[in-house]
């Protein structure tokens, strides 16, 4: 099967000045809103459930069922929080929406707020994206001035919507939804303990839903064209499309919207243009740094959807593929990534705070030639000790990537031993 591009979220990305309201309107922005207000909020949620839309932030949880976790409407305010933290190494997709089609995100916020009964939305964006924050704020100002949001939607629908951009301060963990809420609430971004049963999130003890930016930007198309317009793409369990990002030494790195289910090697060769400068593919980290690494042989068998990736022992994550060429030491790759995780551990849980630092020191020791087989066993042991014993999935992510590198490329670690 050849890799194919389908433009739903990205359909305005190539249009000059598409971030401006005037241009966006000419190309269909806000056309879903009239239909939205002919529907009951629960019907919007049902349509999104039927579309099978899955969260694009890494976890892949179904969006519609998540909305249904909101309690019945009462006197409390309720919130939609858009997760634009996007700090996973290898992931740079949401910035395309901020840069090229911020009005699509605003339109998605209107649709999603209406479905869950919220009138206020906060968009949390990583602090480093200053340019994109300014771009988005300009679009929000335009939308207020045009009466698209504010006291009424589109100047005629009696449904107030307010949108505020909240700039992060530089902390990877704030991409975790509960840490993100803690961060907006003016605290350190420490993830919260998960409740026993499924429930919504709580923002200052008020009901809230947290969705990834791309997920929200996918909603207007479903509202406007019906769920069938979405399910005709992708696979049965992963319908629709995703913004896949590709980085590393391929000829055409970038962000491409594709249906789920493409063969990874076709995507790398046909969309990414193949390897640069005659380099040979060695490995791929498939969906951001948290996903177990795939060898070149495994890449040949990999398909880009959640279930297929689980079947071959990895995860789709955010769809941010990092391409690693032959000639790169996997010990260096592991060192680079564990430095990242050590730096970004929020420090709340001892196994994660200490474990990441411990693995970092051992890999440093291996790189210095002082490592031993026992050290590699210690790395694997620390990985398992961290796994499942912390508040959030940061530590399991460290386990997934580090263990997979040590196991699949053990010979490269052993080749560093001098004694």
């Amino acid at each position, binding site marked *: 099967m050849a890799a194919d591009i389908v433009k739903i979220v990205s359909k305005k990305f190539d249009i000059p000045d598409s971030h401006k309201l005037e241009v966006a309107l000419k190309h269909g922005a806000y056309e879903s809103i009239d239909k939205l207000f002919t529907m009951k909020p629960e019907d919007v949620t049902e349509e999104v459930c039927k579309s099978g839309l899955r969260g694009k932030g890494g976890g892949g949880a179904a969006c519609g069922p998540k909305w249904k976790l909101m309690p019945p409407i009462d006197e409390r305010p309720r919130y939609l929080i858009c997760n634009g933290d996007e700090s996973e190494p290898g*992931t740079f997709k949401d910035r395309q929406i901020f840069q090229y089609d911020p009005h699509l995100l605003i339109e998605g916020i209107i649709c999603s707020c209406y479905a869950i009964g919220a009138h206020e939305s906060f968009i949390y964006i990583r602090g480093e994206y200053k340019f994109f924050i300014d771009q988005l704020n300009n679009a929000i100002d335009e939308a207020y001035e045009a009466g698209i949001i504010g006291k009424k939607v589109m100047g005629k629908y009696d449904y107030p919507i307010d949108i505020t951009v*909240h700039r992060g301060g*530089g902390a990877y963990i704030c991409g975790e939804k509960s840490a993100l809420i803690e961060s907006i609430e*003016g605290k350190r971004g420490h993830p919260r303990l998960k409740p026993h049963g499924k429930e919504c999130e709580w923002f200052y003890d008020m009901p809230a839903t947290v969705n990834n930016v791309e997920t929200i930007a996918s909603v207007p198309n479903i509202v406007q064209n019906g769920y069938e317009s979405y399910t005709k793409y992708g696979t049965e369990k992963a319908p629709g499309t995703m913004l896949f990002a590709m*980085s*590393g030494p391929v000829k055409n790195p970038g962000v491409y919207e594709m249906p789920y289910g493409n063969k990874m090697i076709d995507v790398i060769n046909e969309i990414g243009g193949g390897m640069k400068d005659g380099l040979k593919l060695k490995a791929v980290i498939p969906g951001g*740094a948290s996903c177990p690494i795939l060898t070149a042989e495994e890449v040949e068998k990999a398909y880009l959807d959640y279930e297929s990736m689980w079947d071959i022992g990895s995860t789709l994550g955010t769809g941010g593929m*990092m391409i690693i060429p032959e000639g790169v030491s996997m010990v260096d790759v592991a060192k*680079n990534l564990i430095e*990242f995780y050590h730096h970004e551990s929020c420090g709340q849980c001892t196994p994660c705070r200490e474990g990441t630092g411990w693995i970092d020191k051992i890999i440093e020791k291996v790189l210095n030639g002082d490592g031993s087989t026992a050290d590699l066993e210690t790395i694997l042991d620390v990985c398992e000790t961290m796994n499942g014993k912390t508040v959030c999935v940061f530590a399991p992510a460290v386990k997934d990537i580090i263990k997979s590198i040590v196991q699949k490329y053990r010979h490269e670690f052993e080749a560093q031993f001098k004694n």
Partner: protein
Amino acid sequence: MSKFKYTEEKEQEFQRIAKKYPKIDAMMLPALWLVQEQEGWVSPDAMIFVADKLNKTPIEVYEFATFYTMFNLKPIGTYHIELCKTLSCMLMGAPELKKFIKETIGIEPGQTSEDGRFHLSEVECQGACGGAPMIALNHTYHENLTVDKLKNIIEGCK
């Protein structure tokens, strides 16, 4: 009592943003950003100011500001070079850029040049992996860098 104060413009901005949130606590990040935009860094004195404003203790503001990596806790000079070091940038040449900065400006990560013009931070992923290697210069992204391109950027810093 803090000697720090927002300028009139920043104070107005603070009041405008504060209205958007259900509680004043949510102003921690915006308040510190306003400080850093005004001064270039967040001094202990400014932390006391923010604490007073948000009904917090200074230590609460300090522990918050030190958790997030983007707040400068000392003055950093005119041009802040943030060099991404994470995997895609490492694979595409970030180590060569770091070496070039050391050779030309004479600074390592965490250091400010003697003339106070440049400060170098080696940072984790900036979400620019498709344009690796990259730097942010005073928050502006420069992607797909080579040593020659970086040289031009640095020479353009007056």
